[in-house]
């Protein structure tokens, strides 16, 4: 993992930066970097763990945006409006930065994907606490995927990994979970990640590169990149270091 000095390396086209951090990486003062809408959302969260995860993700987005725009993290114009309902729960966008960003958190993990000029979607899930496998099979897998389920039942991990792959694609497309998971077909759990079918728009398949990410055996994670050629370059970075290098009073 690079980024040891706690700075944001230049982000070239065709590259995806993946900033990983633990949920507890945020100093309470990092909340001071956030914008008004983000702080309002933070206030609406009543569990410390939720606040911690959100703060880590939002602070990383601002530090990455600050490096791209050359401004203070607090001055980064982060837009989180949902395209559909205009409520501020959409993916973070930083107009005029050329950056495409995606944030995901689960249990103790936070990841922010950043790319330039190409849409990205990242998803991390905790295997522990996942819904029971029968429900996952029925509601997450498409009929084509169910038909290939081996006689031996799929493990919770395999099903959660499938969820991560699909959610990464839906996030990259900017549609989120408004598209039912059963309308996507991805490769089987033991195979390299690939999007095989996207029923709402078949042309998406050729545009999408899907990758499994590894972040410990208690988690599954995947990254989807649109229109970035066959081999986007992944750069794994230490988001905890980046946060630690920007202590803020408070």
């Amino acid at each position, binding site marked *: 993992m690079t980024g040891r000095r706690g700075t944001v390396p230049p982000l070239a086209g065709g590259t995806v930066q993946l900033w990983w951090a633990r949920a507890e990486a945020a100093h309470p003062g990092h909340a001071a970097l956030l914008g008004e809408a983000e702080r309002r959302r933070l206030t609406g969260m009543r569990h410390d763990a939720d606040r911690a995860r959100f703060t880590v993700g939002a602070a990383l987005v601002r530090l990455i945006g600050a490096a791209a725009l050359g401004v203070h993290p607090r001055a980064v114009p982060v837009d989180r409006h949902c395209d559909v309902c205009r409520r501020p729960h959409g993916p973070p966008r930083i107009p005029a930065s050329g950056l495409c960003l995606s944030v995901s958190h689960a249990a103790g993990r936070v990841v922010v994907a950043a790319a330039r000029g190409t849409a990205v979607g990242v998803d991390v899930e905790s295997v522990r606490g996942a819904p029971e496998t029968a429900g996952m099979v029925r509601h997450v897998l498409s009929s084509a995927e169910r038909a290939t389920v081996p006689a031996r039942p799929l493990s919770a991990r395999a099903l959660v990994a499938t969820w991560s792959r699909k959610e990464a694609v839906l996030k990259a497309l900017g549609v989120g979970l*408004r598209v039912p998971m*059963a309308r996507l077909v991805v490769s089987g759990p033991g195979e390299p990640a690939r999007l095989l079918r996207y029923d709402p728009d078949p042309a998406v398949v050729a545009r999408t590169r899907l990758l499994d990410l590894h972040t410990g055996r208690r988690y599954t994670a995947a990254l989807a990149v649109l229109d970035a050629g066959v081999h986007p370059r992944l750069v794994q970075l230490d988001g905890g270091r980046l946060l630690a290098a920007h202590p803020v009073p408070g």
Partner: protein
Amino acid sequence: MPDQLGVVRAFVQRHVGETPVDDDEDIFASGYVNSLFAVQVVMFVEQTFGIEVTGDDLDIRNFQSIAEIHRFVLNRGGERLAV
């Protein structure tokens, strides 16, 4: 006997902890639950109200809040079969 809305409220409340959740509050954006919780909601709706939910129903807009879940149950003619 609790009504359908009460049953939905109790289910959501059980999963988000002691903090009271408003009927219209977006339970996913509030950070109470993560996206996978949508599957749990669907399973709850099926088992509790005897509604068959297909994979195509797993649209987050149906399950974003207590009020939306309740509306989904009503639209599908769900009956409260068991607590």
